[in-house]
């Protein structure tokens, strides 16, 4: 009396097939779960027992062994409740053998009364199962939305165990979920650039950053609108493609933040962890190697407000994932790789009190305090922030003015155009946008005309730019040229890029003169 039920497990955002085997034999009544179960899986015994009884079935008073194969991979979570319950019912012949038992993938947590509860990570599991030839999935109603975006998979959403057993018995208690189609046009952004008053320079910088995928550093006095600008940036990033949305949803699904939503990410994520965040929460970690903020911000914006207040090692830990676009988290019991391609928007005050450079308020910081504050951001980190923008103070006239700025949709149009130029140009390089250019590639792709060359030389002489500022200016000039549709980088592109250069010469450098 053996039954085999198909289910699925997760490692990072990739899934692996799990075969749930239930074996009921004569002997002293006992219940064993084997196959590297974690605590939640081991506890499933009690849930399964109660759910089976409360659904009107018998729980076998025999020796029960449940094996989760492959036995060498760790199984986590409550997702195996349903397959175990079905497996036991099949092994004790309380449900008749049916081809559906072999075909279907079973996922879901059971409540004691037999109702089904949603579980995290459904989307990557279903995608994985589809890849392995499974075409039918039975899962909790709560998870139906995210799974039904996968074309070619029949999704049956159930409320409780009873419905499933009836369905397996041939009754039409469950109906196939309608396959949903994903439409990027339906996105409604919560913030719009039109609502930002003034800040023309910063808005332009945000546009450039969005167009070239550059990381952005906003410096400004408190209340100058750094946070508002950052929050609006997702609205000018190119619309999500289905593949991107799928990947974002996968991560959200694993992190368990998807429950109760429409099922599929429609907006680019915007994450703004507090500056007290630990390295593990930012990068990912925990005993189960869960995705961190940088992965949750995948294809979106990671906004770090009060940048210098973050712990130094936390910021330094960001550097490697920023470079690679993925992060691998290793723990004693788990090892997961999560994608982490985010646009970093960092915001900071110019000094601890915030008023340095302000024309209306007095800065109370000593020079030493200011240099210590700024010194918390390392050179290599600064190196990765291509555009540095100083936000002007917002005056009363700006706030009170009725005139609306350019709407995000118009800016997004330009960004899209610039991005498609870049995709075309970097087809053979395996990168997507200018920010990813390596120094070797800048030589090939950032071709300056004569005037631009001269201007850049002049910039070096008079601004004392560092070598790292050089590549940065080149990349940003490239994006500005792309926004204008120019193949070559011209003098005025470089000239504009220089305005968004490093604050190095002003803040990070010698502030005396």
């Amino acid at each position: 009396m053996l039954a085999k039920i198909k289910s699925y497990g997760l490692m990072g955002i990739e899934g692996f097939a799990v075969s749930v085997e239930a074996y009921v034999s004569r002997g002293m009544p006992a219940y064993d779960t084997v196959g590297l179960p974690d605590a939640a899986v081991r506890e499933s015994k009690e849930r399964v027992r109660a759910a089976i009884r409360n659904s009107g079935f018998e729980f076998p008073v025999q020796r029960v062994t449940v094996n989760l194969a492959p036995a060498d991979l760790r199984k986590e979570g409550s997702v195996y409740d349903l397959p175990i319950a079905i497996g036991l019912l099949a092994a004790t012949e309380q449900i008749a053998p049916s081809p559906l038992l072999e075909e279907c993938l079973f996922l879901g947590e059971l409540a004691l009364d037999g109702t089904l509860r949603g579980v995290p990570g459904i989307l990557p599991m279903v995608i994985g199962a589809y890849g392995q030839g499974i075409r039918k999935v039975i899962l909790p109603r709560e998870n139906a939305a995210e799974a039904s975006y996968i074309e070619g998979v029949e999704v049956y959403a159930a409320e409780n165990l009873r419905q499933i057993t009836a369905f397996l018995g041939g009754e039409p208690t469950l109906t196939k979920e309608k396959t949903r189609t994903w439409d990027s046009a339906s996105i409604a952004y919560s913030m719009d650039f039109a609502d930002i008053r003034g800040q023309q320079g910063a808005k332009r910088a945000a546009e450039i950053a969005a167009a070239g995928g550059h990381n952005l550093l906003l410096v400004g006095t408190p209340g100058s609108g750094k946070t508002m600008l950052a929050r609006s940036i997702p609205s000018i990033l190119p619309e999500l493609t289905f593949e991107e949305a799928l990947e974002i949803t996968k991560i959200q699904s694993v992190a368990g933040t998807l429950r109760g939503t429409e099922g599929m990410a429609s907006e680019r994520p915007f994450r703004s962890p507090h500056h007290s965040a630990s390295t593990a929460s930012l990068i990912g970690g925990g005993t189960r190697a869960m995705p961190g903020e940088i992965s949750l911000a995948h294809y979106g914006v990671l906004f770090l407000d009060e940048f210098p207040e973050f712990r130094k090692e936390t910021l330094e830990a960001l550097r490697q994932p920023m470079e690679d676009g993925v992060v691998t988290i290793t723990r004693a019991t788990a090892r997961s790789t999560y994608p982490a391609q985010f646009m970093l928007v960092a915001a900071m005050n110019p000094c601890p009190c915030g008023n340095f450079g302000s024309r209306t308020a007095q800065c109370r910081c000593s020079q030493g305090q200011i240099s210590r504050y700024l010194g918390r951001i390392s050179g290599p980190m600064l190196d990765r922030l291509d555009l540095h923008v100083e936000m002007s103070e917002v005056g009363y006239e700006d706030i009170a003015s009725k005139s609306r700025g350019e709407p995000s949709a118009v800016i997004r149009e330009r960004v899209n155009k610039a991005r498609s130029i870049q995709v075309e140009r970097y087809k053979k390089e395996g990168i997507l946008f200018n920010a990813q250019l390596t120094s070797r590639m800048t030589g090939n792709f950032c071709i300056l005309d004569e005037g631009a060359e001269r201007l850049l030389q002049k910039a070096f002489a008079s601004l004392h730019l560092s070598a790292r500022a050089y590549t940065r200016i080149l990349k940003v000039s490239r994006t500005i040229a792309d926004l204008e549709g120019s193949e070559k980088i011209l003098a005025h592109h470089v000239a504009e890029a220089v305005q968004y250069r490093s604050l190095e010469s002003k803040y990070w450098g010698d502030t005396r003169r």
Partner: protein
Amino acid sequence: MKLDYEREERFLLWLGFVLGPGAKQYERALAPFGGNAEDFFNAAQKRALPPECGIKAEVLERIFASASERYMLGCFRRLQEYDISALSVRMPDYPSLLKEIYDPPPVLYCRGELQEAELPIGIVGSRSPSEYGRNMAYRFAKELAEAGACIVSGLAYGVDCIAALGALAAEKNDFPTIAVLGCGVDMVYPANNRDIYDKIMRRGAIISEFLPGTAAKPSYFPMRNRIISGLSRGVLVVEAAEKSGTLITVDCALEQGRDVFALPGRLIDAKSEGTNELLRSGQAKFTSAAEDILEEYRGIGMAQKKNEPKTVKKPKKKAAKTAPVQKEELPKEREELPAEQRLILNILAKGEKSFDELCELTGLSVPLLNSTLTEMEFSGIMKQSPGRVYSL
């Protein structure tokens, strides 16, 4: 550098070493001995100082312990080692202006070559000046030093060190600046002023009333300020907020009967509230050019040499030339500039503007404005300062 001292001088300095700064205590200690430091020394050796000296018990112990030839020799050797000379208030080389004040430091420690400056002018101001303050401090220091003045400043952040730099830029002046420290002369505080410190030591002098090795303390700076004003004939205030340490120097200067000059600032500028108030109350003379200061001291020092053969009216004319500080433009070259640059120049001529304000006032597109500003920055017609504020 003077490192060999007369016998009497050695005892005077020794007393300064053991008593530390404080003019009153020094005088009071010497009074019972008729000002003879050697007698004081001998009495201290015998542990028999009269109570009229007014020295506290714990200090007395220290004096007794240090009243030996060996100790004194050690002190002078140490000074020599660090290249520091010492000046007692009773020595003839002591700056004559400083000697006049109510509480002159009993002993001055000095690095570099302290000379009797003909026209010492103090320049004080905010530690975090605006771009305007920076420019003015530099410019006035340079112009005054070129006219023969010696700039006295505090070698702290901001106006202090900018003034010293400005003075050092006057290459013809062979004693352009004195820096007065609020710590021992061998200490560089703030530490990143090291390069300026070295430059001043080569061409000017660095002085302090504190024993070498004394670390800076907040309470020392007001004490230092009285030396800055005491050394100077006049004190120029570049930028000062309403309540600032700069105004302590001004108070000292007024008490010591020194002239105070102040640069006008914008009404809404917090960093100019102090200077504007000084001008309003009549405590300071309105100053818009170096000539405004120099004309007060006609007949002194190089200002005299320069102007003596000339007619009386000439300096007035010169004043008119340098007076309109802000309106310094090059009309000829301006004609050749592109239209956008001229537009921006005209706006900035009325005062500094932020990027957003420029954007609104010029009506130029952001990319165009960005690149135009860069070009102007490079050609040196315009400067950008923190907060993305542009000024000429």
